[in-house]
């Protein structure tokens, strides 16, 4: 867009046309105070805080030319009244006088604050926002010292009102800026907040069931300029100035949202330093300034009571606490003894450094990645390249999402892809069921589960959708494992990779394949060389097993059985899992909050996380435990310095070439400026001072030659009469080890339930909410039925991590459970 030059407070400013005056001033380093305006939201002009004087060149009506004064300069005509800087776009020759130079603007803003405070309770001492509150800050900076209004006429409204179990509302504190409503409507696309009444009585309501039913609800508390919306998690947790901040990365999904953990020493926790809250940290290329509620509220697993504090060893059939030396000695002895017959099983929860050490440790013995989703080798080849940013995608670009319910699997990707679609990108959503993203899709493809490969192959052919994809300037494919097991997702990845290659959508920025992995660092594990195996139970049977960070026994009884028959089991994990119960030696590890490291996101972005709280008990970081174990077995690994391990990675893997810890900690200026120190746009979001991370290069980007495997066309499973096709799907809030310990989410997690189309359920005589008996592959279970009209008939969705071990599509029979009288 063309640039426009204007004068703000006697300062010449050149900004792109269409910029709002308030943003233009901000870019020139001049702060115009705002409450309702937020650089991420469309302007609303509701609070009147940003009143400024605006003058425009006077135009001759006849000629349309600017009228000149005696000095030969354009005559500026000021509006008789103050205008809002947040709703006025800049224009050529405009002259703006903010509160810094205009007495009138100063008086206007002062009056606005005075009005806002007529209904504000001023209970800052007990308000969770006190200390990081825009209203406090701007009142100090621009408000009057005293009010002329009578206290008795203050508004009396509900003060302690839980909108749901996650967010509390204080209606008296609300200044009716509608930032939360606009966030829910425009950014989250879930209009569950609204205003009721009008004028001074206007107040926020939420009618959804459960209350404030949005997975992005926590963000409204960040952008609320007052203490009206607060999280129940942090309610009276601490005053903001008492908190320490530590930068980190969310470990819940492959998006890799940048976070800040706030900690404080706490008497309730026996004087330990504990995490008090989690807030987003700005990274415009990853999560902007948002995060989902899972990341915000489900971190409690790191302080769960099940955490392992000391090494344990099986003595007389029971696990007993032992010293690190004893545990490591035994583990090393046994693993050496069965060297030729040993397996290392790792999870994508681990950091890159852990996985690198583990991979070298495993050496030529079998090294398995614990996952049911394949294709990571292909994302290394044709994955996204340097500079990729979904936030840049728009008109002319295409995004294809297949076999992934992003809303449940990677909420922030969902949010950003939705925004890209709204900017004009062609969004193609292909899935076996209706998904929330469908609403924003340009094209929706509904296939029968099992036809994923065919769907992609069709996109290589001739159709309107195929054409749109091929002709797109840039194209990304997000593929997942919705309804797929390892074999299916591996084939799907191959099909997608081939499609990208054929349409020449590889090797450039904003082009390539993205895996929607079940865990945070699955991509990193693939990069390090770990691969899943088709038959895990077989791979574990009768071996000496070293399991790091995975809980196969907790997920699948068949794997538990296999582990029971293993020769020796070493489990290295953060907490006591079902797998750990079966171990001979347990080595306590540290979660990412207690140590440093790096994760590789699904977009193949390597990002650093930093220690947040001191280590729990005697736990140690995974890479160092592995190094100590290796040393006993005669392998020398770096076990104390993470930057050194990372340097080893950078030297041995071409994708990591040129990266190091310093590079990952680099930060460039980001727009909008929303740091904590910035009281105008900021509020409570965290400025990123600790690294934006860096993309790995893909083989396509490096110009390497490679051959992509052809997609294996698996014959789709079609159930017989009386059977259902059961497919595994991911639910945002599940009973997995990293979510279940968040008590706050218990209501949203709910009980295990299979989803059926109402008609299918009707045929089986099962109504919504009823319990049925299901049997599949020789196993049986009792679960509830949930009906969902977005499903195809004859399909049963089985949520992962809910205690039903279904790792790939299977046939399933449903019988009504015996009624309990």
């Amino acid at each position, binding site marked *: 867009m063309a640039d426009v030059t204007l004068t703000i407070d006697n300062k010449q400013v050149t900004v792109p046309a269409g910029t709002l005056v308030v943003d233009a001033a901000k870019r020139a380093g001049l702060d115009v105070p705002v409450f309702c305006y937020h650089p991420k939201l469309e302007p609303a002009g509701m609070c009147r805080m940003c009143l400024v004087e605006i003058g425009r060149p006077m135009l001759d009506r006849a000629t349309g030319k600017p009228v000149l004064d005696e000095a030969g300069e354009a005559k500026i005509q000021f509006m008789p009244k103050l205008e809002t800087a947040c709703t006025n776009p800049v224009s050529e020759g405009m002259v703006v006088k903010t509160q810094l130079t205009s007495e009138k603007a100063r008086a206007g803003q002062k009056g606005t604050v005075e009005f806002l405070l007529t209904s504000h309770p*001023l209970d800052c001492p*007990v308000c969770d926002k006190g200390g990081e509150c825009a209203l406090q800050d701007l009142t100090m900076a621009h408000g009057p010292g005293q009010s002329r209004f009578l206290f008795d006429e203050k508004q009396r409204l509900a003060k302690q009102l839980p909108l749901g179990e996650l967010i509390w509302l204080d209606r008296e504190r609300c200044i009716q800026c509608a930032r939360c409503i606009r966030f829910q409507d425009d950014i989250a696309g879930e209009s569950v907040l609204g205003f009721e009444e009008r004028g001074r009585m206007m107040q926020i309501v939420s009618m959804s069931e459960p209350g404030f039913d949005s997975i992005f609800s926590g963000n409204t508390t960040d952008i609320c300029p007052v203490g009206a919306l607060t999280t129940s998690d942090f309610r*009276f947790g601490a*005053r903001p100035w008492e908190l320490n901040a530590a930068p980190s990365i969310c470990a819940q999904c492959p998006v890799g949202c940048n976070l800040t953990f706030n900690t404080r020493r706490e008497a309730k926790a026996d004087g330990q330093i504990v995490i008090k809250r989690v807030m987003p940290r700005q990274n415009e290329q990853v999560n902007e300034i948002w995060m989902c509620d899972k990341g915000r509220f489900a971190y409690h697993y790191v302080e769960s009571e099940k955490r392992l504090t000391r090494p344990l060893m099986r003595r007389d059939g029971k696990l007993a606490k032992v010293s690190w030396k004893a545990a490591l000695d035994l583990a090393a002895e046994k693993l050496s003894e069965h060297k030729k017959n040993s397996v290392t099983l790792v999870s994508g929860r681990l950091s890159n450094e852990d996985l690198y050490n583990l991979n070298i440790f495993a050496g030529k013995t079998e090294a398995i990645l614990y996952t049911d989703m394949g294709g990571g080798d292909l994302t290394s080849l044709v994955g996204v390249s340097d500079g990729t940013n979904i936030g840049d995608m728009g008109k002319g670009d295409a995004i294809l999402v297949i076999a992934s319910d992003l809303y449940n699997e990677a909420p922030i990707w969902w949010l950003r892809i939705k925004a890209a679609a709204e900017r004009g990108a062609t969004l193609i959503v292909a899935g076996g069921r209706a998904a929330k993203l469908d609403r924003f899709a340009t094209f929706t493809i509904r296939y029968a589960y099992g036809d994923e490969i065919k769907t992609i192959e069709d996109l290589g052919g001739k159709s309107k959708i195929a054409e749109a994809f091929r002709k797109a300037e840039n194209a990304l494919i997000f593929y997942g494992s919705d309804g797929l097991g390892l074999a299916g997702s591996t084939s799907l990845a191959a099909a997608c990779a081939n499609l990208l290659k054929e349409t020449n959508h590889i090797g450039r920025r904003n082009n390539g394949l993205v895996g929607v992995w079940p865990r945070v660092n699955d991509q990193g594990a693939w990069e390090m060389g770990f691969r899943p195996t088709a038959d895990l139970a077989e791979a574990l049977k009768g071996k000496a097993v070293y399991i790091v960070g995975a809980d196969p026994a907790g997920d699948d009884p068949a794997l538990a059985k296999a582990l029971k028959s293993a020769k020796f089991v070493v489990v290295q994990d953060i907490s006591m899992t079902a797998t750990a119960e079966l171990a001979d030696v347990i080595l306590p590890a540290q979660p990412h909050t207690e140590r440093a490291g790096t994760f590789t996101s699904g977009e193949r972005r390597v990002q650093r996380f930093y220690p947040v709280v001191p280590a729990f008990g005697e736990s140690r970081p995974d890479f160092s435990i592995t190094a100590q174990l290796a040393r006993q077995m005669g392998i020398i690994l770096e076990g104390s310095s993470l930057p050194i391990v990372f340097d080893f990675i950078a030297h041995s893997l071409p994708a990591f070439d040129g990266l190091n810890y310093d590079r990952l900690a680099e930060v460039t200026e980001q727009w909008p400026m929303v740091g904590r120190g910035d009281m105008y746009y900021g509020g409570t979001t965290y400025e990123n001072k600790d690294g934006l991370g860096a993309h790995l290069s893909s083989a396509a980007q490096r110009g390497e030659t490679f051959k992509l495997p052809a997609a294996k066309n698996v014959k789709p499973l079609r159930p017989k009469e009386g059977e259902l096709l059961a497919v595994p799907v991911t639910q945002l809030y599940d009973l997995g080890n990293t979510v279940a310990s968040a008590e706050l989410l218990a209501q949203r997690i709910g009980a295990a339930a299979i989803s059926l189309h109402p008609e299918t359920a009707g045929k089986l005589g099962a109504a919504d909410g009823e319990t049925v008996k299901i049997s599949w592959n020789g196993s049986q279970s009792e679960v509830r039925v949930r009906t969902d009209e977005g499903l195809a008939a004859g399909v049963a969705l089985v949520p992962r991590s809910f205690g039903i071990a279904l790792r790939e599509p299977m046939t399933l029979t449903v019988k009504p459970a015996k009624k309990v009288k």
Partner: protein
Amino acid sequence: MSLLEPIIELGRGLVITMKQALFNPVVTVQYPEVKREVRPRFRGRHVLKRYENGLEKCIGCSLCAAACPSDAIFVEAAENTDEKRFSPGERYASTYEINMMRCIFCGFCEDACPTEAIVLGDNYELSFTNRRDAIYPKEMLLEPVPSADMTTPRKTEANVFTRSVPEMKNPKDWESGDTVKVDT
């Protein structure tokens, strides 16, 4: 020099001493048997005050801790309910500790307190033999309840004690310098 001179000098000195000892008021007291009364603005050990109805004035806002130049105060807050109420409003101090080793008795905490809950009292007997004893928890700092049925926490009538900070009836209250009216 006569022989008498030193004796005379001695006598004169003694006269002055006797004058001071017999006719001037006594300024010392026999501590610890006798305790000196302190001045009204003396700053001794802190006391956490209560309202007349027995509810704690402290709302756990931590502003005293923020104001404290020697970081002697530690506060943690929790939520009040009508079933189990400590103080008016939604918030009370679940932990309140002052480290008397650190305290410099500057009175900033008093100034910072929005409810006049913390007051430097007249107790100056703060010796201890164990460093741990120098940390005064909330139970030691809280004023005793006016009567036995006014202990905290206690069950209170619903929707009565909704305000944490006492209300000013009129902004002019400030100007006249009157104490803030308490409406609990």
